[in-house]
């Protein structure tokens, strides 16, 4: 309990620190949100600056933003002045979440099944080849992966939609593009951990007792390999859930990843900050959840912390 409260406190502190740092950093970026290729007359520029509160010092802007945010008002986007920031995020959240969840599922499917298959496979040469392929896969950039999958499954075979969101089937290719790299890395990592477990005395004992290899793997080795795996899965979950700008651009999906990059390039401060905070909140929550799951997976951690 004490551990959980401690963790919660540090999460809240990190979040607040992040808020201030991100607020300052967005203001320090060169470029002005009110200027672009089509210059406006000077007096209009001054009027717009006053309207958006950009003539105030940064701490006054932060105070105003915090006050408005506490009332649930995130303001309107500078780039889309008719559109509330909350509406923009809400419209994109479902898509990014769906894409991220599917990508996470594929990632775990690729990672776990490959690692288990490799662990059970007696052929050393096959294992070496597979490991080499895994390294190739997680070195592949996601945009290249996305383009190749599009070319094969959409343009050549016409099995799946090429781009745009038209239902769950249109998320399959983007999710797979997002999942391949992390899934291959997960497989590589888990295989290494399982191989380490195989050398443990208690596993050798269980083998000597005559347990089936599959049972040995799933009931004993896997449980012990979970804690380090969760440390990787925690941040990965947050990364996948919040989408990827490159994959969303290639597949023309209106997700949060694209929204964040576009808001930064437009210097759309009212939209950028909530998006960054959303990303960081997801990271903090997923890492916290990973810590809790680690405690569950390895009760010895809990006892060590109690002793400390």
């Amino acid at each position: 309990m004490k551990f959980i409260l401690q963790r919660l406190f540090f999460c809240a502190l990190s979040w607040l620190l992040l808020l201030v740092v991100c607020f300052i950093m967005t203001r320090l970026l060169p470029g002005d949100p009110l200027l672009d290729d089509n210059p406006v007359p000077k007096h209009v520029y001054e009027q717009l600056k006053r309207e958006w509160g950009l003539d105030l010092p940064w701490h006054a802007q932060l105070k105003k933003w915090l006050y408005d945010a506490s009332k649930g008002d995130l303001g309107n986007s500078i780039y889309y002045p008719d559109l509330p920031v909350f509406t923009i995020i809400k419209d994109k959240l479902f898509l990014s979440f769906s894409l991220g969840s599917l990508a996470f599922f594929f990632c775990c499917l690729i990672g776990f099944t490959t690692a288990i298959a490799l662990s059970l496979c007696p052929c050393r040469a096959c294992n070496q080849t597979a490991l080499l392929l895994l390294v190739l896969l997680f070195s592949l950039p996601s945009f290249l992966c996305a383009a190749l999958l599009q070319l094969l499954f959409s343009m050549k075979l016409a099995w799946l939609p090429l781009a745009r969101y038209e239902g769950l089937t249109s998320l399959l290719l983007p999710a797979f593009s997002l999942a391949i790299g992390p899934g291959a890395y997960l497989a590589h990592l888990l295989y290494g951990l399982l191989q380490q477990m195989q050398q443990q005395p208690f596993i050798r004992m269980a083998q000597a007792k005559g347990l089936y290899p599959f049972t040995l793997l799933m009931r004993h080795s896997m449980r012990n390999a979970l804690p380090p795996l969760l440390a990787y899965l925690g941040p990965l979950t947050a990364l996948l859930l919040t989408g990827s700008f490159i994959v969303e651009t290639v597949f023309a999906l209106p997700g949060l990843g694209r929204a964040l990059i576009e808001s930064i390039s437009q210097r759309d401060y009212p939209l950028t900050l909530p998006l960054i905070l959303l990303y960081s909140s997801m990271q903090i929550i997923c890492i916290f959840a990973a810590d809790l799951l680690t405690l569950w997976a390895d009760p010895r951690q809990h006892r060590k912390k109690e002793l400390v």
Partner: protein
Amino acid sequence: MARALLFFCLCFAAISCNRQEKCPTQELKPHPGNNLRMAIRKEPQTLDPRLARDLTTLGLFRLLYEGLTRLDEHGQPQLALANSIEASPDGKSYKIKLREAYWNNGDRIIAEDFSYAWKSVLQPEFKAPNAHQLFALRLAKKAKQGDAFVDAVGVDALDDETLSIELEEPNPNFTQMLALPFYYPVNSRWILQRDWEVKKGVKPNEIPTNGPFSLEEWRRGDQLALKKNDKYWDEKSVLIDQVDLIQSDNATALKLFDSDHLDWVGSPFGSLPQEAVAPLREKGCLSSVPATAMYFLRFNTSRPPLNNEKLRKALSLAIDRDSITNQLLRGGQIAATSFVPSSMGLQKQQLISTKSQPSQAWLLVSQALQEMGLSRTEMPQLTLCYPQDEDNLKVAQLLQKQWSQLLQIEVKLQTCESKMMASKLHEGDYQIALGNWFADVEDPINFLELFEYRDNGTNSTGWSDKNYRDLLQKARTTGDRKERDALLAQAEQILVDSAPIAPLYQPTMNYLAKQRLKDAYLSPLGYIDLKNASIRHYNIDFKQEANSKKDQEEKQ
């Protein structure tokens, strides 16, 4: 392991070998609907025609709204919401009778809608980015500056059907200007009832429009669906039921076009990937329209060494514009011979050579260095800022090479994203900057007035010239077109001689359209006209038609 690797490589090679022999403009399959699917790169920023700023929004408004006149495919104004236009002999007054037309919410379009729209823009506190487009109206500029009452501006609704307009000076292009989005009406009754500017919870499809199409649905970041406006006064001429504007980046849009999910990609709402343009042009698939626009270099004349006119001229003379358009970009661009595009016919002869003139340039550099009291080796390095883009990078690299080889002037390249670039120009924090201007109207003054005043947002060079300003002012006051053109030509000569800018090339708008689409026009101003466009339907088996065409070609 070797067999697995070989298999993988063969698969990759098979996927990569994609020789597309036929034009992507050919349809792969019949399209059953009567809707046009176009790619759009960015969403519009607003649906209020008074606040439009960027080209995408202005282009979209051509589909959603209509003004008193409309430009045809030749850029000539035709009557639209105006039933008749009477101009006074001095060209300063207009009396316009409106035809019977309605907003898509059923309200009648009345003269007050125009008067309200234009006067609200000219309110000093109204944050209209393009209020200066209305300064042709009497007292408009003074009203915007707060020196006159807005009610005194030269536009009045005499009754519901009659609009009276008074101009500050006669303008032979005024009927053309009435076709621009800046002169569109707004539904004054709806706005006053809903208080639109303040209450921003209005759904996009609730906003009244009066054009050939109205906004049915807007899925943010994904698609805008425009449907045919049944209340449009000329709705019988509109042959397309729906226009879907699908948001995607340029590369994805081209793939969607190739696989027949889009009917139009490229300008005006996007652009084609640069590497695809030349091959498409060679295959004869590409459609191009020279834009009424100019890409040019700005020199910061308020800082040394570019405050030296001879140095600026030398840099301009050293540029081989033909190599930029014909060898580097190869997208149908036209090398600049003046600042105003040659298609506008302002100049009878070239003001700028498209080939570099190294000896003249070298001489000017020597003179400039002498004036500055510097030797060749003391010539400072210059910095060229260019907006982040593949084409711009190539042009910047070529300029760097040409200046280094011909003038021994070292230039450092600095890439800037668009916001940074805009800030640098606004603050004058640059030496040489690559920029462009797309005209709002087919009028040479639209280019020349960019540099009329030093503190114009469009100037940013720190240059101004009294003679230049006087010539532009005189041109505005004369109603005689020939005299006006002569004055503008003189002004352009001053601009080119002083060289605060170096024109480079006139861009082209490239696009791909499926063969099923007929009578859709892209104007040089970047507006697309779909009013009379239609989509060919297949009423026979698609394969039969394709086979019979093939048989005919073989017989020939």
